[in-house]
């Protein structure tokens, strides 16, 4: 198929500062990536903390700090720098209401 869907791939990369970011619409799907380490329901797994049910602004602040190398971590800085502010906002909004 000469895919019109390819047009949907334009990347909203790094457009706005995190505080003013409009959430991306695909938060629930993006948040799926967290579950491989943070456990089913993002409820935590062994030494990896629960991230579900935490206030969205807190999650955004932490991810933003990881992204800026302001918060020490083992791998979260490398991960956070892979997501736009809009995506971080959307994931945080989803996780905040997930239980």
């Amino acid at each position, binding site marked *: 198929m000469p895919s019109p869907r390819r047009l949907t791939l334009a990347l909203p990369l790094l457009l706005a500062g995190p505080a003013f970011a409009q959430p991306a619409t695909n938060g629930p799907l993006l948040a799926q990536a967290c579950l491989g*380490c943070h456990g089913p329901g993002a409820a935590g797994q062994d030494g990896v903390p629960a991230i579900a049910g935490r206030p969205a602004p807190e999650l955004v602040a932490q991810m933003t700090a990881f992204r800026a190398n302001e918060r020490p971590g083992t791998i979260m800085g490398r991960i956070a720098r892979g997501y736009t502010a809009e995506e971080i906002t959307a994931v945080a909004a989803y996780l905040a209401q997930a239980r």
Partner: protein
Amino acid sequence: MTQTTRRALLGAAPALIAAPALAQNQGQARLVVVGGGFGGASAARFARMSYPWLEVTLIEPKTRFVTCPYGNLVLAGTRRLEQISHGYDGLRARGINVVHDWVAGIDPTARSLRLRGGATLSYDRLILSPGIALRWDALPGYDEAASEIFPHAWVPGEGAQTTLLRRQIEALPEGGVVGLAIPANPFRCPPGPYERISMIAAHLKRHNPRAKILAFDAKNAFSKQGLFQDAWAELYPGMIEWVPANQDGRITRVDPGAREFESEFGTRHKVDVGNVIPPQSAARIAIEAGLANASGWVPVDPLTFEARQAPGIHVIGDANIAPPMPKSGYVANSTAKQAVASVAALLRGEAPPPAPVYFNTCYSHVGEDYGISIVGVFRPNPDGSGFVETPQSGGVSPRGNHPEQRRLEALYADAWYASITRDMFG
């Protein structure tokens, strides 16, 4: 979402509304998933939980799935095979129809598949995650019979290969030589051979400290190379010799009877234990269904994972062509979810979810309480021809003296294993 994507989406939707399978099925649509490993189990579980209107069937011959991940720790003696084996009761309890059989053939036109046991099954959409095949014709001297002497332990099956290699390493004569033959790219789990070297070394350091590991490689560089080599020098000084392709490291023939590897320039290397990781391709079913190209792997649409050769069949996991993403369990799990969401959308006549992000973290254990990792965050590229890694992100653990980081990463690796296997089978 930006203006551009919103407009593009509206434009895209009408084109995709053709022939929704749902209309005929009154709320039920049949998703069949082939392969109950990292991609397939993740897909079946996610489909069942997120889209309850889908009828999900999972076809997998084995009743217990032995993971490749943590198989290297079985070699080290720090895990037992039972601890890395998983059954399908959890998926059954979620309402997935689990069928233990082989798929013998696929008819993309009729949207049906044939099981080895004789039954025929129809589907509205098919997700295929059959993993890899070892290419028994690619390395002279190395066929299935040879793997009883020089185990590959790269496709665990019921676990016999891993158990065989473990026994051989335990029985290694004092001061003996373990040889590894490592293939060129692409292959399953780029850091896997080097984690294996480390875990064999961990065992030998304790039980056979004068033994040697000779690792022959068809490449000149490998994943997390600096970190692995730093750790080898620190933890196992003098034990490991890695021979790159440009120093005659490419093994071109093996002789299990004589227990010899032969490298490109004709040099013969005597080994006491030989672990041969042969060249690979997509699993047979993908090739026989005509989904692979001449490379032996399956080209896919980076948004929906539909095979370029057969829309309606979504191919995820190691079988597909997705560089720069590695052939890893985490990538299989992450892409499974976008494939399922695409299946659900397409069955409803909607556009597949736009702007996905695919995620990978591969931890490697290199010693006791010593873990390292590589992270990758990927997206479809703008022209839809493949995938790109997100700039300025991901990468490997820092080099240098970071004992706390190494200890934590070993701990988090264990949490990853527990977490992801629950996300597959729980």
